[in-house]
């Protein structure tokens, strides 16, 4: 009998059950891969992860400590590095809460109400994910730069956006725009509106309902979104590079400072600052795993 044509067609559950009933499984049927194949596949997978992911991560720390811990510490304590760290924290401290408020508002409107054009709105919210980081910075230059749409108007009123902290924050808000909203929307949709409707009919105000009923239900998902949003906000390079002007001590974030030091052949300095960002990435990964476990979500999804 021709096995290939027998199983080439999509085998429905019904058929498979019939087949199994008719023909008891022969001993030693190929139900799983032979042990040698399993070992080979595991070796290839682990080897690939080792070379592609673990080695680069390890090299960051090895290069950072190449000249000893003293050099490492002084590279981080150096004034320009310190101000870059401060700038990164400042930008994230503005951009993440802004996107958090947006995410909560968007999720409430989209998940708890039925209206037309909802899927279009969700698509538009996801839009920044499909825009190249460089283009994400470019669009703000085209809008607020010296030769941008609002450039002359802003210049006339003495307002500068590009090459200032405002520009950094705007570009960061754009690239991290969807993170929290797209985490909250499906979660709040899953919860439905029964609990909120019960709360409102018992006399709770809108804000009471939101803070006492909705928010506790989505707290872990919210934290998950904030974690990813923050990691991207602190680590963004392309978009902020375009709008920053790389003014040391003024508009330099950590990733941009890494680039400057690297291009000046100060490798220990570059890798020292980079090691802090790598630590942030590791903390993010640990937090992500913990939250996924708390939410009972196995096999995390990408974005």
């Amino acid at each position: 009998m021709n096995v290939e044509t027998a199983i080439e067609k999509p085998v429905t559950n019904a058929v498979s059950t019939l087949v199994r009933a008719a023909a008891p499984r022969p001993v030693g049927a190929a139900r799983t891969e032979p042990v040698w194949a399993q070992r080979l596949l595991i070796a290839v997978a682990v080897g690939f992860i080792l070379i592609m992911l673990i080695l680069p991560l390890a090299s960051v720390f090895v290069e950072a400590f190449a000249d000893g811990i003293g050099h490492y510490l002084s590279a981080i304590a150096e004034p320009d590095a310190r101000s870059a760290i401060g700038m990164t924290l400042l930008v994230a401290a503005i951009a993440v809460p802004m996107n958090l408020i947006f995410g909560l508002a968007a999720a409430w409107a989209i998940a708890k109400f039925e209206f037309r054009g909802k899927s279009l709105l969700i698509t538009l919210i996801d839009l920044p994910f499909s825009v190249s980081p460089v283009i994400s910075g470019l669009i703000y230059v085209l809008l607020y730069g010296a030769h941008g749409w609002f450039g002359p108007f802003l210049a006339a009123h003495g307002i500068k956006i590009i090459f200032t902290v405002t520009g950094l924050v705007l570009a960061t808000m754009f690239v991290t725009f969807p993170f929290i909203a797209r985490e909250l929307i499906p979660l709040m949709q899953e919860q439905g509106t029964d609990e909120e409707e019960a709360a409102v009919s018992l006399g709770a105000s809108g804000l009471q309902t939101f803070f006492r009923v909705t928010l506790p239900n989505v707290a872990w998902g919210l934290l998950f979104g904030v974690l990813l949003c923050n990691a991207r906000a602190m680590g963004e390079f392309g978009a902020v590079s375009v709008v920053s002007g790389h003014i040391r001590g003024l508009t330099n974030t950590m990733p941009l400072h890494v680039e400057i030091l690297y291009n000046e052949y100060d490798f220990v300095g570059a890798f020292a600052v980079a090691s802090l960002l790598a630590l942030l990435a590791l903390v993010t990964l640990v937090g992500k795993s913990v939250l996924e476990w708390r939410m009972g979500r196995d096999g995390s999804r990408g974005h």
Partner: protein
Amino acid sequence: MTSESLAHPMTPRGFVWRRKSVLPGFGITFGYTLVYLGLIVLLPLAALLLRPADLGVDGFWKVVTAPRVLASLRLSFGASAIAALINAVFGLIVAWVLSRYQFPLKRLVDALVDLPFALPTAVAGIALTALYAPNGWIGHLFAPLGIKIAFTPLGIVIALTFIGLPFVVRTLQPVLLDLDKEVEDAAGSLGATRWQTFRLVILPSILPALLTGLSLAFARAVGEYGSVIFIAGNMPMKSEIAPLLIVTKLEQYDYAGAAAIAVVMLAASFVMLLVINMIQRWSRRHEERSA
């Protein structure tokens, strides 16, 4: 429909576009969503789409078909395609191993797959460059063979492979976990070898997810900047990616030229988005048919 009228949707008149609800707060949250989306995303993107109009149709065409621009687009799309294919192969193996086998430190390996999402691209860029430079841990193994990796298009492929891996693994993993084992057993009991079962039973049902992951990795790689520019060498016509050319044009105050290349890239990523959506719709139909 203006944002003005949306600011007060709780007034009972009109609004057949929304189903009635006892819950409060639709007006303010929906209005805020639209305003914020408009200011942060839509207005800047509109500024980008309209800017190349300064050039006129002929000028636009001249910019995007200049040899240097074409070379950078070819490199960006070509290297991204190769990297996506590498990830399709190794991402499938990684996802397979993670969802089917038990081995020591499996949870750690699983968590590490997300590293490219979490590690800032500039850090990835300098780390990969240090590894693959002629005197680096990996580069020095290839240098005696006359193979240069860093500062060549080969280095670009490496960086883009790094960036794209999680997309393939994370799209495949849930699908592999959901696979109906009974169908595999049936194939096995009918006498199919394990390879035949994989090729004819498993592969067709994970193919949509594999293609989705591959397209996501490709789309991300095309726009990637931070991890590439350190390792690329950035030689015009040879190892200059399209996003870098946008930055170069911007630094020369050629706003319209930068915007023209950006519009081409944006159009390409929307085509990709469309393709991904089509694959997903197709796979949903596929699932419904076999369910």
